[in-house]
């Protein structure tokens, strides 16, 4: 299988600071959906910035689709990655919402005749088509997050990194974004690699793989059901299980191992029979 991202012996600290990563290793297969979780300050956003080449590792290598990240490759590597930052305010460049989406397309040298359609599609996916001519800075927080996501989707990058991109969406908006990601995954299969950074374990559950980091160390790594079976480790690290996991722990009798929502409901209805 092709590797989308390979991180070897990564070491990083901000100028003045304690080490964020020390000998960190992670490999992500092309087409994988990886949820990255960890407590505040554990290094998630830093890792995203390192992969994008916005900051430079002190040591170790980061390889994206076989190409090692270096000064002369950073441009090309970055072109393949779409990132939605934790604060969408840092991300707007256009005078209108449509301009903002167009900006990335211009950089990609898309013919301007193709743009309107692509822009409309992307804005429709996130439910912001009616805001096309509005100023990004005058949108509500959740609306800003949706526009930032549309700008990334329009570019159809091979890797998408979402850093808490749904934190300010209402439940409906969150569900739409999650459904969109699931559709994209289905549509593009191994052509799209997805990394979602989140504190919402119900979101993390949708991924193929969940990676938990703490103090620059990978402490859990596996399928959602594997990771969420480690109730004590999660709690100990200031994290929690998805809602149904927290529920299962409180049931009497309890199911063996971690069940997702559908499985838990089935388990309960069998129990009642």
């Amino acid at each position, binding site marked *: 299988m092709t590797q989308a991202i390979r991180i070897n012996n990564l070491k990083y600290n*901000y100028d*003045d600071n*304690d080490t964020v990563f020390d000998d960190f290793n992670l490999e992500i297969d092309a087409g994988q959906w990886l949820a990255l979780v*960890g*407590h*505040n*300050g554990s290094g*998630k*956003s830093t890792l995203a910035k390192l992969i994008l080449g916005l900051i430079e590792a002190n040591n170790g290598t980061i390889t994206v689709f076989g190409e090692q990240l270096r000064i002369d490759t950073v441009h090309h590597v970055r072109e393949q990655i779409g990132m939605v930052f*934790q*604060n969408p*305010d*840092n991300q707007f460049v256009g005078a209108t919402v449509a301009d903002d989406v167009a900006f990335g397309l211009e950089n990609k040298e898309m013919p301007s005749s193709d743009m309107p359609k692509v822009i409309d599609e992307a804005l429709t996916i996130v439910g912001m088509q009616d805001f096309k001519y509005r100023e990004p800075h*005058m*949108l*509500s*927080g*959740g*609306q800003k997050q*949706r526009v930032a996501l549309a700008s990334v989707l329009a570019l159809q990058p091979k890797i998408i990194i979402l*850093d*808490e991109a749904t*934190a*300010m*969406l*209402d*439940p*409906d*908006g*969150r569900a739409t974004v999650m459904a969109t990601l699931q559709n994209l995954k289905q549509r593009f299969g191994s052509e799209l690699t997805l990394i979602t950074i989140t*504190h919402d*374990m119900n979101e993390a559950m949708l991924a193929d793989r969940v990676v938990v980091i703490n103090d620059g160390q990978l402490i859990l790594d596996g399928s959602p059901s594997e990771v969420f079976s480690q109730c004590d480790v999660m709690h100990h690290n*200031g*994290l*929690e299980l998805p*809602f*149904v996991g*927290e*529920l299962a722990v*409180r*049931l*009497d*009798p309890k199911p063996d191992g971690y069940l997702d*929502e559908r499985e838990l*409901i*089935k388990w*309960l*209805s069998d*129990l*009642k029979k």
Partner: protein
Amino acid sequence: MAIRFEKVNFSYGAGTTLAQSILHDVTLEMPTGRVTAVVGQTGSGKSTLIQHINGLLKPTSGRVTVDNFELTSHTKEKELVKLRKSVGIAFQFPENQLFANTVLEDVMYAPVNFGATKSEAKLAAERALTRTGVMRGLWGKSPFELSGGQMRRVAMAGTLSSDPSVVVMDEPAAGLDPKGQGELLQLVLELKKLGKTIIIISHQMDHVVAVADHVIVMHEGRVVAQESPQILFNRDITWFKTMKLDLPKAGQLAEKLRDEGIILSKRPLTLNELADLINAEVSHE
């Protein structure tokens, strides 16, 4: 401090050709010494609403009263000083609220600004930072060199350090890890014990159930409900769909169980309530 909105209308860019009418005839009350949650879809006007409480925005028409202070379209900027001192807002985007060279200086700003001495302000800032869970090791750092969740906590400390009697929090849980979210809810309850009036905007109905005494539901710039969480979350399920509002997670799961023929004796609003109801239901058989 009693907070009251009477027939408040608000437009961004009022009087210009670009006027966008956002709040429509908003009449509401936020009870003194209680926790009021403001919920509703993205763009429904929540942030716009709460910025009226300290006069950052003024009603285009109508009136907001905070205790005996009255805010209308005519209120002058310099009259607002007193209001600003009693109402602290933690904004939706904490990074827009931070500005000083170090975390500690940032949090000291409000008390100094309202007349505290430097050493009083330092004490107040340290207390606030401890209260919001900002580790001592971060106090000397630039507030811009923090993780998202750390910034959120510092901004919250900056709101609390001047000891306002009304505390407004705009989506304060966004960006906090699960443990931090639990601590935030504890903080809200602690502040309430201290007699403060608290307004919290949230998309997480579980948080609303955990702390709120009173809930205001906004929909397209109008207030469509204002009542206790117990009354609100026992409304008919179709109402929630129309308002694009969630039930607390326990209630959502109960609805799914119902579809599978597991009918609980009432709608649970918390995890523990749900677990108890299921346990009772299963052991009956």
